[in-house]
C-alpha cells in the first residue's frame, strides 16, 4: 500500500489531480471568510442585481436571485465533495464487510447474500436513488443515503471476489486448516490485500456520486436552498438558461473538472494494481 502511495505522488498527472481537489476543498472552506458576497452562501438575495453577466465585481455573474455565482460555485464544492466522500464512505462501510463475510462463509450463506446483491443490482439505474430520496425527502444527507443504498452492492461484489481469491491461496488455506477464525482471516489476509481494488473503485465512484447527486438535483430531489451544490446551481437556472449561459456554465465546468480528477486518481490506483500483481 505504501508503495502505491509513493508511486502515486511521483506521477505528475495524478498529483496535480489530487492537488486540485485538495485546493478546491480548502478554497471552499475559506471562501465564506474571503468573499465580499459571503452572505449569499447563507441565502441572501438581491433581486435588483439579478441575472448579470460576468463582470469585474461578479466574476461568474449573478443568478436569478442576484447571488454572486463565483462565491456560491466555489462554496458548492464543499457540499459536492461531501456527497462524494459520504457516498463512498457509506458504501464501503456497508458493502465491504458483507462481501468479505460472504466470501469466507459457507456456500449457502454466500449464495443468499449474492442473490440479494444481484437483486439490488438489477434495479434500473437512477430508480432506486430517486425513489429513496423521494421517500426520505429531498436534502443533501438523504441524497447520500439514497445513492449509497444503490451502490453498496458493487462493493459487496468486489470484496467478495477478492476474499474468494485470497482465501484460496495456499498460505490462507493452511491457516484456515489450522483453525483460524473467519474474523482472523479477514483481518490479517483478506483486508490488507483488497485495499487497492477497493480504493480504485472508491475514487472512481466518488466522481460518479457527484454526477448522480447532480442528476437528482436536476429532478428536484437533491440538496435544497440555501445549501448549494453544483447540480442544484445548474438546475436552478433552468427557466433562464438560454439567456444566462454563465449560470449554467461555471458550476458545470467545476463539476466536470472534479470528476476528471477523481477518475485520474482512480486510474492511478488501477495501474498500480496491475503492477502489484
Amino acid at each position, binding site marked *: 500500500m505504501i508503495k502505491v502511495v509513493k508511486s502515486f505522488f511521483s506521477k505528475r498527472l495524478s498529483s496535480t489531480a489530487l492537488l486540485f481537489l485538495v485546493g478546491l476543498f480548502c478554497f471552499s472552506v475559506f471562501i465564506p471568510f474571503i468573499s465580499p458576497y459571503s452572505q449569499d452562501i447563507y441565502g441572501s438575495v438581491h433581486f435588483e442585481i439579478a441575472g448579470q453577466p460576468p463582470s469585474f465585481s461578479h466574476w461568474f455573474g449573478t443568478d436569478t436571485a442576484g447571488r454572486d455565482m463565483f462565491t456560491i460555485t466555489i462554496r458548492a464544492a464543499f457540499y459536492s465533495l461531501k456527497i462524494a466522500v459520504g457516498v463512498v464512505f457509506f458504501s464501503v462501510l456497508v458493502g465491504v464487510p458483507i462481501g468479505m463475510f460472504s466470501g469466507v462463509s459457507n456456500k449457502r450463506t454466500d449464495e443468499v447474500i449474492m*442473490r*440479494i446483491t*444481484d*437483486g439490488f443490482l*438489477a*434495479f*434500473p*439505474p*437512477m*430508480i432506486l436513488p*430517486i*425513489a*429513496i430520496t*423521494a*421517500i426520505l*425527502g429531498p436534502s443533501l444527507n438523504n441524497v447520500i443515503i439514497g445513492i449509497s443504498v444503490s451502490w453498496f452492492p458493487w462493493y459487496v461484489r468486489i470484496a467478495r471476489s477478492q476474499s474468494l481469491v485470497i482465501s484460496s491461496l495456499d498460505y490462507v488455506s493452511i491457516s484456515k486448516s489450522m483453525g483460524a477464525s473467519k474474523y482472523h482471516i479477514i483481518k490479517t489476509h483478506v483486508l490488507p490485500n483488497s485495499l487497492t481494488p477497493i480504493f480504485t473503485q472508491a475514487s472512481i465512484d466518488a*466522481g460518479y456520486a457527484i*454526477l448522480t447527486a*447532480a*442528476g437528482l438535483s*436536476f*429532478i*428536484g430531489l437533491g440538496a435544497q436552498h440555501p445549501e448549494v451544490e453544483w*447540480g442544484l446551481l*445548474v*438546475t436552478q437556472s*433552468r427557466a433562464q*438558461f*438560454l*439567456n444566462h*449561459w454563465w449560470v*449554467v*456554465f461555471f458550476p*458545470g465546468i467545476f*463539476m*466536470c*473538472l472534479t*470528476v*476528471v480528477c*477523481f*477518475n*485520474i486518481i482512480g486510474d492511478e490506483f488501477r495501474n498500480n494494481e496491475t503492477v502489484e500483481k
Partner: protein
Amino acid sequence: MGLIMLFVTSITFFIVRLLPGDPVFLLVGDHPTEEQIEKAKNDFGLNEPIYKQYMVFLQKTIMLDLGVSLRTKQPVLTELSKRFSATFELVFFSMIIALLFGFPMGLVSALNQNKRLDYFFRGFGYLGLSIPVFWLGMILQIIFFGILYWLPLQGRYSGIVLQDSPIIYNSGFILIDSFFSGEWGSFTDALRHIILPAFAMAFGVLGIVFRTTRSATIDIMSAPFFRTFKFYGIKNSEIIKKSGYKNTLIPVSTVVGLSFGLMLGGTFLVESIFDWPGVGQFSVLSILTRDFPAIVGVTILYSFIYVIINFFIDMLYIIVDPRIRD
C-alpha cells in the same frame, strides 16, 4: 432470473407505497371534493389493506396486466410500448455515434501511444467519462439553439411536419420509418431533432469505448503474433488494419452492452431536458407523481432489458471467440 425480477418488482411495489404524495390526486384533478376522493380510492382499491393490495398486484403482474397509469389514464403497457421506440431510437443512435468516434480514436491513440495525439484523445476520453450529461445537454442547447439557432431545442419532430407527413404515426421509429418511405422532410426533421440529445448521451459512452479500445489494442500490440508480424517489417497500423482490430471486438462489444444500461440511466435526464417522449421522461414524471402502476411497469421493463442485454453479451462472446464454445 424470474426470482430477481420478482424481487425487484416487489421492492418497487413497497417503495412506491412509501413515497410521499397521494396518487388519488392524479385521478380527480386539481380541485376535487371529499366524495370524489373517496370514490376514486375505492375504485382503485386503495382503501384495502396493503397485503391485499400486494396480492392483487402480484396476480395481475404475473398475468402481464400492468394496469392503467394514474397520470395519463392509459394502460401502462400501451404507454411503455409507445415510448420505448422513442427511447430505443435515441439510445441506438447515441451508441452509433459513440462507436463511430470512440473506436477509431482508440485505435489511433494506441498506435500513437504517448504522443501528442494520444494525450489529446485521452483527455477527451476523461472528459467524456466526467461530464454531467444534463449539463452537456443544456450547453449544447445554448450553443446550437440559443446562439447559432441551427438545431431545434427540444422534441422529436416539429409540429409542422406532423401535419405534412402522417407516416409518423404508423410506427414508433421515426427515422427508420421516414427513411424507407422516402419522406425526406420528416427524415431530416427527425434527424435534426435527434442530433443534440444523441450527442449529449453519446459523449459518456464514447469515453468508455475509447478507453476500452485503446487498452485492448495496446494489449494486442504486446502479443506474440504481433511481434512476429513486426519482425517481418509490417507497420503497426497495417497489422491493426488487417487483423489486429478484431481482437478488440470482445472487450468493446462487452462495454457496448454494459453501456446500454448506463445510457438507459442517462435517458432519465436527457429525455427530460430535450422533451424526448420516451421511457426515461415517463419514469421521472411517474415517480414524482407517485403513479405506481407506471413505476412498476418501468421497473419491470428495465430489468427485463438488463436480462436481455446480458444474454446478448454472452452470445456475442461465443460468436466472436470460438474458443468459448467448447
